């Protein structure tokens, strides 16, 4: 059984899942689900860190806080919760670097047995590198 950080959820047009990453430092993070169009059918997932010196949330930070596995488990929990609330939506995301996308891909492969029956996942590549992940809940109709 994997662990994730406790969440503070703010509902709205942009859903915000806040948590504290506890590694070498305590870093406040937020997973944001932002609609990419007027139809709300495809949603961008962003992971932002709080920068105390700038007093802002920013997604260009590399924290190396030593808890990336727990952070990714927390992000996975957020995706699951969001798609349970909005099963007809598609969540898309892309890491800020090539190495981050590879990390996300490895984690998804590692836990594939857990999610493969419940989610469609597609990876779109550009120039032989992973570019964008697409995640959608599999909707099962009872006969």
């Amino acid at each position: 059984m994997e662990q994730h950080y406790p969440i503070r959820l703010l509902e709205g047009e942009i859903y915000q899942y806040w948590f504290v990453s506890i590694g070498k430092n305590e870093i406040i993070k937020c997973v944001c689900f932002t609609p990419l169009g007027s139809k709300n059918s495809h949603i961008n997932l962003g992971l932002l860190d709080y920068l105390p010196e700038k007093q802002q949330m920013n997604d260009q930070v590399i924290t190396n806080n030593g808890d990336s596995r727990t952070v990714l488990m927390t992000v996975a929990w957020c995706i699951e919760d969001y798609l349970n609330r909005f099963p007809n939506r598609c969540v898309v995301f892309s890491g800020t670097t090539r190495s981050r996308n590879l990390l996300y891909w490895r984690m998804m492969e590692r836990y594939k047995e857990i999610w493969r029956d419940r989610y469609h996942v597609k990876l779109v590549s550009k120039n032989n590198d992973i570019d964008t992940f697409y995640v959608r809940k599999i909707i099962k109709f009872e006969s």
Partner: protein
Amino acid sequence: MKRKHLKVINSQIDSLDAIISSNVPFYSEKTEAMLSRADEIEENIVKWGWDKE
């Protein structure tokens, strides 16, 4: 996908709540980049038939 919550002490929750309530600005270059690709993303979703499920 049941997972346990980690224990977080009250001071960490307090600092989290303080930041949330302060309405800090968000700067997400990735979200901006994805917004500019919204049409391409929607085309892929339609191509895979995910819009019809």
